[in-house]
């Protein structure tokens, strides 16, 4: 088990897709937030691809909320894609899923 998170940026039309690979927990939330905010600064349409995210905790949900709030303040779009498994479970359990537009895959982004 690799207890890290890495990010890959993918361009998809007008969207910047930030693919999170690994886990966003207490130990990695700070670097995830830094990567998310840096990506958001570069685009007006950011999608976080969570299909390669194995685990997220409340520390990770706080990162999602912060990115959501920051994008709203900047009149930007921030959406989630590839939400599945344990990540889906925790988003639903926390009611966080209702705060974001969620796409099955980043290939669906227009």
């Amino acid at each position, binding site marked *: 088990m690799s207890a890290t998170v890495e990010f890959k940026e993918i361009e998809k039309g007008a969207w910047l897709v930030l693919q999170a690979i690994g886990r966003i927990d*207490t130990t990695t939330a700070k670097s995830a937030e830094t990567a998310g905010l840096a990506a958001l600064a570069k685009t007006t349409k950011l999608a976080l691809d969570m299909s390669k995210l194995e685990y997220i905790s409340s520390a990770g949900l706080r990162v999602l909320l912060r990115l959501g709030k920051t994008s709203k303040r900047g009149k930007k779009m921030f959406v989630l894609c590839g939400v599945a498994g*344990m990540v889906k479970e925790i988003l639903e359990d926390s*009611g966080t899923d209702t705060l974001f537009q969620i796409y099955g895959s980043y290939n669906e982004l227009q």
Partner: protein
Amino acid sequence: MLIESQELMQANGRIDLTDNDWKKFRAEEDEYANIRDYIMARAEDAGIDPKNQLRLELGVEEVVINVMHYAYEDGGDLYVRTSIDDGKFTIELVDHGIPFNPLEKHDERAVDTSDIEDRKLGGFGIEFMRKKFSKVEYSDEPFMGKRANRLSMTFEPKG
């Protein structure tokens, strides 16, 4: 030199040595990964499958981080013990910090339905702890001769 917690407790002599699987950690956030790795290795040994391990880990993270934030003002120890009984995995956490029962903590998150601008960033932890463990018990009793907070959490794998 690293001294095993069990040896420390044996030297201390206040612990029942037939029941001495306690492991001592520092209750500080930079120790969290060690605590998680310890508990998750025990869960794997206990036969918890990978999907349920992730659910268990979530409960573990929320509880352990909560204890780290509330137990001590100037740092202290956190004792961990795990056991398996009839497929149910139990984790016990003991600290000598300020009396704190997380089960009594008001959970604002449960009623927070505000939209994203107003949604609070904190408060998920206790809710996840309740959701992930089938049983959570708090007691306030002596441990190693000192008043302690003891949390016992039981995890039952789901199909």
